């Protein structure tokens, strides 16, 4: 009786272990089927390289170049801001901060991770957006720049906590060796610790970028949602994620527009899959 139950539960455990594979496969297959039927009517190349996204005009135009550009500009801006700041904060928390303060700072970073993106979006709308409009004298503060700033902030927990893990994983012997040779703590940090932790830091950056590309609500509320290729950082843009979120509610099910949004989802899935794969490769290096 007990043996039978043991056998049953071990089978259930194995099945649950496999579920992650099942779900990744299911998501991919679903996007492929629903997005794939879009490419029966429209060519893949004109989808990727088309400059105009007019899904509801006749004839409808489904070019996502402007959306890709929007995602790219916002992501690039956020990365440029978030990476140096995040890595510096990780260094401080891992190597410099005294024990008591370390816990407080880490909790602070965790709190930031806990704030829902819709709340960040709302706060961005009432603070950053008007500030940027008046500072740079723009007609609207809803721009790629505002979005990039908020996203940089949102990517911070990922970058800080994973870099911090990588920095802490550097063997003590490395640091002791440098310190014994008379190097200061700071010299040890940037000559020894950072190079040794680099694979982990790269993984942190990749995961941060993945987070930024996939972010939806805050971006939709702050970037102005203009589906045009931005000429400057201060133009309103529209990202791929925001397009799906904003338009899916209003599409006719099984229409070309509906399938086009799934096709965008497929593009996003492939991008984030690649980024996570690279990040995972670097993380594996750290563990060795």
């Amino acid at each position, binding site marked *: 009786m007990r043996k039978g139950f*043991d056998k049953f539960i071990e089978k259930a455990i194995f099945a649950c272990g496999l579920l992650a594979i099942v779900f990744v496969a299911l998501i991919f297959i679903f996007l492929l089927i629903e997005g794939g039927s879009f490419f029966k009517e429209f060519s893949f190349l004109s989808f990727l390289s088309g400059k105009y996204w007019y899904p509801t005009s006749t004839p409808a135009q489904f070019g996502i170049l402007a959306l890709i550009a929007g995602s790219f500009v916002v992501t690039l801006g956020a990365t440029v801001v978030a990476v140096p700041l995040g890595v510096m904060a990780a260094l*401080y928390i891992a190597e410099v901060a005294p024990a008591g303060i370390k816990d407080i700072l880490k909790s602070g970073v965790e709190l930031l991770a806990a704030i829902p993106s*819709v709340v960040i979006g709302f706060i961005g709308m009432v603070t950053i957006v008007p500030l940027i409009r008046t500072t740079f004298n723009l007609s609207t503060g809803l721009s790629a720049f505002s979005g990039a700033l908020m996203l940089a902030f949102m990517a911070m927990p990922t970058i*800080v906590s994973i870099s911090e893990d990588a920095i802490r994983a550097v063997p003590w012997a490395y640091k002791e060796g440098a310190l014994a040779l008379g190097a200061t703590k700071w010299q040890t940090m940037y000559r020894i610790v950072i190079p040794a932790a680099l694979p982990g830091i790269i993984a942190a950056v990749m995961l941060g970028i993945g987070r930024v590309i996939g972010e939806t609500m805050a971006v939709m509320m702050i970037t102005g949602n203009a589906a045009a290729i931005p000429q400057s950082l201060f133009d309103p843009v529209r990202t791929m994620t925001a397009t799906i979120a904003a338009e*899916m509610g209003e599409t006719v099910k099984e229409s070309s527009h509906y399938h086009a949004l*799934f096709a965008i989802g497929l593009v996003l899935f492939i991008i984030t899959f690649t980024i996570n794969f690279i990040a995972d490769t670097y993380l594996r290096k750290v563990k060795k």
Partner: protein
Amino acid sequence: MIRLDPKRSQNIAFAILLIVTILIIVPVLLIIGVIVKEGYSAITWEFLTGMPKDGMRGGGILPAIVGTLSIVTCAICITLPIGVLAAIYLNEYAKDNLLTRIIKLSIVNLAGVPSVVYGLFGLGLFVMLLKFGVSIIAGALTLSIMELPVIITTSRQALNSVPYSFREASLSLGVSRWQTIAHVVLPNALPGIMTGAILSIARISGETAPILFTAAAFYVPRLPHSVFDQVMALPYHLYIISTQIPNMPKNITYGTALVLLVMVLTMSLTAIVTRYYFRKRKKW
């Protein structure tokens, strides 16, 4: 070029690192502070227990609170057992082979899928194909898949931190593998698993994109009766009133944000404090 004295350059570098860290932490406190200050006045008993009125510009947010609670409860009930069992498989049973590598890679990738893509998937599978319609259960299933990698990862860390000698002691007494896991490993890993679960609940309470097309409704002036009902949800409601409704009274928007924030942050803080407490108490 002037060469800085190493001691001095260290002081300068550390000061810069400190400033940057403060620069990241202070906005967190500012965000919380602003929302508390501006939203505090909106919080009344009527606001928490009433129905929205005047096209959301007045009344309360009860249906949104109840909606979010029902979606989140369903989601965690689905994802927690599955996630813990999957973590047990990975930590206690899996051998270091190709299958295990593929599972781990799937978990990493599942964690990286954008939330709005989960929304698309939920729409395609649960709403359309399985015909659940836009409903609590469709939203909960979508969120449970999204949260699965997080539950698996945190539970696995908790299981992994139980010393190997505990298992050896039990196995050497002739106890079976599963009995050892159930009676020795799991109880010791429980605090870690629970912290992970609470953090997950906090995270999914604030998610908007996955429930946009699977569960959330613009306006439902009554409470849900079954899991197949469409509901209002707190994060979606905040999105609606802060972007779609003109002349929205400011304090109601801030009040809604405050309720959401308090919900999410109390849970996160509980998890952080519990973890800290158990880490200190641990004897091995």
